[in-house]
């Protein structure tokens, strides 16, 4: 084209980033990669191969060898072997290694960005300006956490060997999110990249060699989902961190059940993008570009569900339609490209099929198609005229497809936004700070962006609620995913009691210990009772044997008590203090009871009783003091990390120290605003029920604490399967724990599970404090950029 013609058209240039260096690097490695184990590449001649192609033109980039089971074993074994020394290196030693990795990545930004774009199909502008800078920032930030570990996490230690499995949408960024915090805290790693996008992980392996990462600390294996599944289920792994689809997350939850592994799952989403009439609509349109048309919409937290106030819906839709016609769909390596190629033909077909099938059930599709027509290029799309029940409004599409619905009021907006199985992220668009700050905490999601979307930083936690998974990555909250308390000891079990049939005594009036549900004492639905015994084998009391219906009633009572979660900390503190005050009145009664039941001395009983009072005071104290943080992210704004109550929390209580352990569970839970369904110790079931009179006189609103006794294992399973239960704390035998883990996979509840006897309840270090508060809450990060 002549200059004169260009002068007329004023077009942009096709500015292709050169891939020469990247191709050279691939050539240098023979376009073939094996497993990175113990600091060396393990290549096998007859390995099964997966071809990693450039999705924009189908060209082969490299062949990747699939790890076989002996290589997987070797990777786990070498990680195990390297772990103690890596931990012993200390925070400063590890900080230096992470810092070296950050520096090295910074020296190869261009090459890394090009490799990422070649492998994934994302626009070079995004890999260059977003992915890679965030990767580098993640390593710098976590080098800092390694340095501060001894000061900040002195009572914690690394979990051990972490298995980490990531998806294909942000290959290297997800690697950084996984590897940096795990390494920083002294864990060793077996990492598996996605089979579609293994290249940058291989590049990272080479950097590990140069950065002086000790052999065995980072191991990288390749393969498809089956390799990931074997890795997650591997006996030698202590921790599994997975990012990917909800379906796979669920199967990992199931396959690791009962293995005592700590789990972080960062799964799918259908995040709401809520636009109020008083929003800056042009800003919201650009927000959508950053949100659903970022990375071809292949983003777990993409704002794929637009909810717009009816008054401005037409205006916004028309702006969106105009805007997406300006988006450039084209060659990923072109610097003027806005949307590149979907990751594979399979993904293209999946998106296309979903949209086509969805449209059969209604909806109006608007697509802007500018540029590429062949290959896996899916145009930016807007679907209107659908409602909440439409499959496209509910299911994750994972492509550049936005669905839009309208709402009338703020209340309706919140209801629609929360009408999803997912809860990863959401954004709120309004120029009215009162409205934005009111709505943000009401949205059920782990990350809320106010007047922005898809903002990320190493200093801020990321992760979801509901079926979007659990655990956080980034921020201080993310580090606890790779730490465990130092004191945890192997379990010990109580000696069983032999029951003696004794005639009931005439000295006292026969007492009935009923369930406590919705503030009332109620009889078991099934009409059965079970006997509990004192230490000497004599009958202590008969307690109700709960069933599915009792659980249902208890959970619905807890749901109704939701105003407790919105209550302020001061009020909750007053009530917990009052509970302590009322309990103190019954000191002599309790000491006698504990002596009889547990066969302990008066002094021991007094110690447990006093510890229980002290514990109540502790959590009353914490009620208005456990207050989150403002993260220091590099932008003009505040990111607030708010600890929020989990909601309805089921607690399966441990057997020993019945009074103290019961208080140790319910007090932190209600202090943080949860509503509790407690399944007390089976042997000492009466203890919790004996507390009811005290609870009733202490102004605890009905439904905040509910108690159902019976077979712990069965009731735990019922609770694990109840979709309205948001989280479970469980102290029980391995079998029950495994059952809870398996059953709860259905809706991916947040779990805190333990073997009996994992801690000394009398020791405040073990029996109370931040660990409990952290598990009674989930951190919500609210990003609020400001400026006038």
């Amino acid at each position, binding site marked *: 084209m002549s*200059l*004169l013609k260009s002068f007329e058209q004023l077009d942009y240039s096709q500015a292709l980033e050169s891939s020469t260096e990247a191709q050279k690097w691939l050539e240098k490695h023979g376009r073939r990669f094996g497993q990175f184990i113990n600091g060396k590449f393990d290549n096998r001649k007859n390995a099964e191969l997966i071809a990693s192609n450039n999705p924009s033109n189908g060209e082969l980039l490299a062949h990747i060898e699939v790890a076989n089971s002996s290589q997987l074993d070797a990777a786990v074994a070498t990680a195990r072997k390297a772990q103690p020394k890596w931990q012993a290196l200390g925070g400063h030693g590890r900080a230096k290694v992470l810092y070296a990795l950050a520096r090295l990545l910074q020296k190869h930004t261009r090459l890394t960005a090009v490799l990422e774009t070649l492998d994934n199909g994302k626009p070079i502008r995004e890999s260059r*300006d977003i992915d890679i800078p965030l990767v580098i920032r993640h390593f710098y930030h976590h080098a800092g956490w390694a340095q501060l570990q001894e000061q900040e996490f002195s009572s914690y230690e690394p979990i051990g060997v972490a298995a980490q499995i990531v998806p294909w949408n942000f290959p290297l960024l997800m690697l950084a999110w996984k590897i940096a915090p795990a390494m920083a805290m002294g864990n060793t790693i077996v990492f598996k990249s996605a089979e579609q996008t293994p290249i940058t992980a291989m590049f990272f392996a080479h950097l590990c060699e140069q950065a002086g990462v000790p052999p065995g600390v980072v191991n990288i294996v390749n393969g498809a989902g089956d390799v990931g599944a074997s890795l997650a289920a591997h006996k030698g792994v202590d921790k599994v961190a997975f990012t990917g689809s909800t379906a796979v997350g669920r199967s990992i939850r199931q396959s690791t059940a009962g293995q005592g592994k700590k789990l972080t799952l960062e799964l799918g989403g259908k995040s709401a993008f809520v636009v109020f009439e008083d929003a800056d609509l042009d800003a919201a349109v650009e927000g959508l570009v950053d949100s659903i048309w970022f990375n071809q919409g292949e983003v777990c937290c993409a704002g794929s569900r637009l909810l717009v106030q009816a008054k401005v819906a037409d205006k916004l839709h028309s702006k969106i339609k105009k805007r997406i016609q300006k988006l450039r769909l084209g060659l990923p390596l072109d610097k003027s490209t806005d949307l590149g190629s979907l990751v594979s033909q399979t993904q293209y077909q999946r998106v296309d099929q979903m949209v086509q099938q969805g449209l059969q059930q209604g909806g109006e599709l608007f697509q802007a198609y500018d540029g590429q027509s062949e290959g896996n290029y899916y145009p930016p799309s807007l679907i209107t005229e659908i409602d909440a029940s439409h499959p496209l409004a509910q299911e994750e599409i994972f492509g550049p497809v936005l669905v839009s619905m309208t709402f009338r009021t703020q209340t309706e907006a919140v209801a629609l936004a929360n009408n999803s199985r997912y809860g990863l992220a959401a954004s709120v668009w309004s120029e009215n700070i009162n409205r934005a700050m009111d709505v943000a905490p009401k949205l059920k999601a782990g990350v809320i962006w106010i007047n922005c979307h898809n903002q990320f930083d190493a200093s801020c936690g990321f992760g979801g609620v509901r079926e979007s998974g659990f655990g956080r990555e980034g921020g201080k909250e993310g580090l606890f995913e790779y730490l465990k308390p130092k004191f945890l000891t192997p379990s010990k079990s109580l000696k069983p009691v032999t029951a003696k049939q004794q005639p009931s005594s005439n000295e006292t009036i026969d007492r009935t210990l009923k369930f406590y549900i919705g503030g009332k004492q109620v009889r078991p639905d099934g009409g059965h009772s079970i006997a509990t015994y004192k230490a000497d084998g004599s009958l202590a009391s008969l307690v109700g044997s709960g069933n599915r219906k009792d659980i249902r009633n208890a959970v619905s009572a807890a749901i109704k008590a939701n105003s407790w979660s919105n209550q302020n900390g001061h009020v909750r503190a007053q009530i917990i203090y009052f509970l302590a005050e009322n309990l103190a009145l019954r000191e002599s009664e309790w000491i006698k009871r504990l002596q009889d039941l547990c066969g302990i001395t008066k002094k021991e009983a007094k110690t447990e009783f006093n510890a229980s009072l002290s514990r109540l005071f502790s959590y009353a104290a914490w009620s208005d003091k456990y207050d989150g943080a403002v993260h220091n992210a590099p932008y003009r704004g505040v990111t607030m990390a708010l600890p929020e109550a989990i909601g309805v929390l089921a607690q399966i209580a441990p057997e020993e120290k019945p009074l103290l352990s019961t208080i140790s569970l319910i007090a932190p839970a209600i202090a943080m605003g949860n509503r509790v369904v407690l399944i007390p110790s089976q042997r000492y079931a009466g203890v919790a029920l004996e507390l009811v009179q005290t609870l009733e006189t202490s102004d605890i609103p009905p439904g905040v604490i509910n108690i159902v006794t019976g077979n712990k294992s069965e009731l735990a399973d019922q609770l694990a399967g109840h979709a309205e239960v948001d989280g479970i704390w469980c102290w029980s035998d391995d079998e029950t724990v495994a059952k809870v883990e398996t059953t709860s996979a259905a809706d991916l509840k947040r779990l805190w599970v333990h073997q009996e006897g994992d801690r000394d309840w009398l020791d405040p270090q073990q029996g109370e404090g931040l660990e409990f508060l952290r598990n009674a809450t989930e951190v919500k990060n609210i990003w609020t950029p400001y*400026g006038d």
Partner: protein
Amino acid sequence: MKTNKLNTEDSIINKKFAEDDKKVISYPKMEVENYPNGESNIKRNLGVEFQKGKIANISINRSAIERRCANYGVRRSIKKQQQAAWLLKAITLIDLTTLSGDDTEARVRRLCSKAKQPLNPNLKKDLAVESLEISVAAVCVYHDMLNAANKALKDSEVKLAAVSTGFPAGLSPLPLRMQEIEYSVSSGADEIDIVISRRHVLEGNWKALYKEVKDFREKCGTALMKTILATGELGNLSNIAKASQVCMMAGADFIKTSTGKEPVNATLPASLVMARMIRNFYEETGCRIGFKAAGGISDSKTALVYMTMIKEELGRRWLEPDLFRFGASSLLGDIERQLDHFSSGYYSASYRHPLT
């Protein structure tokens, strides 16, 4: 005493505006006018009635604006031949400006001769664009320099623009400001760059602003009116947006960022806000309003970012001199050097190009 008098006058004017507020102002129906010289095919803005509702709900999110601004330069590539083409276009968008206390007729003559022939013929030949009639859009001077400029620009396509209405502060007596426009128009100015009373914006006196601009526009007659908002003095982006809207309602042909004399002149965020208001106005009225970025745009790279912003927000049509201008003095020199580089492959020195 002088001050007192002005105050009294102001209060009379304010009282008059307060009375006007009670009436519904309707614009006299005018026929669609074409631009002077008739080379522009766009419908001239005749203004619309003052509508409070159009400005009451305007709220601009600064962070979002800044995030967007950060993208124009890195999301769109203008390289090699495209860059040369865009820079040639940029030349035609320039209001070559001198607004100094030490301006003389000789200085203005030199500026005008550069304006007529901004590109050295050899360079034009090297670029193979001899067929293009390239000149800057206009020369922009103070009133007293109009005669000299008029003579120097005789028989050229270059328009003659005068800053007016008590430029740059806009604080001289209103009758004088009105008269100044008349003077300049009768001295041959094709375009009048007026300044608005910033206090009307800062006091939220939108009706007064509307009236002022409308009156100025009437005085301009067939001359094109560029309305300088002085964005650096308006406090925040929402005020910039509201002022843009009011000026367009009042009949501005162009809205312009700055006088070049404020501590902060043209910025990309302020310009984006103005561009979006222009887009809204166009969507509502079908009237295309021009945009002029002035002050501080002195290199090619910055100019390209502004042009990209305009193309993305308003479209290709706006990248023509009847809808977009750079108010600049040293930009042209940098563009010449960039074009020279495109043609020769090496960077040129500024002394090798004729001075503006």
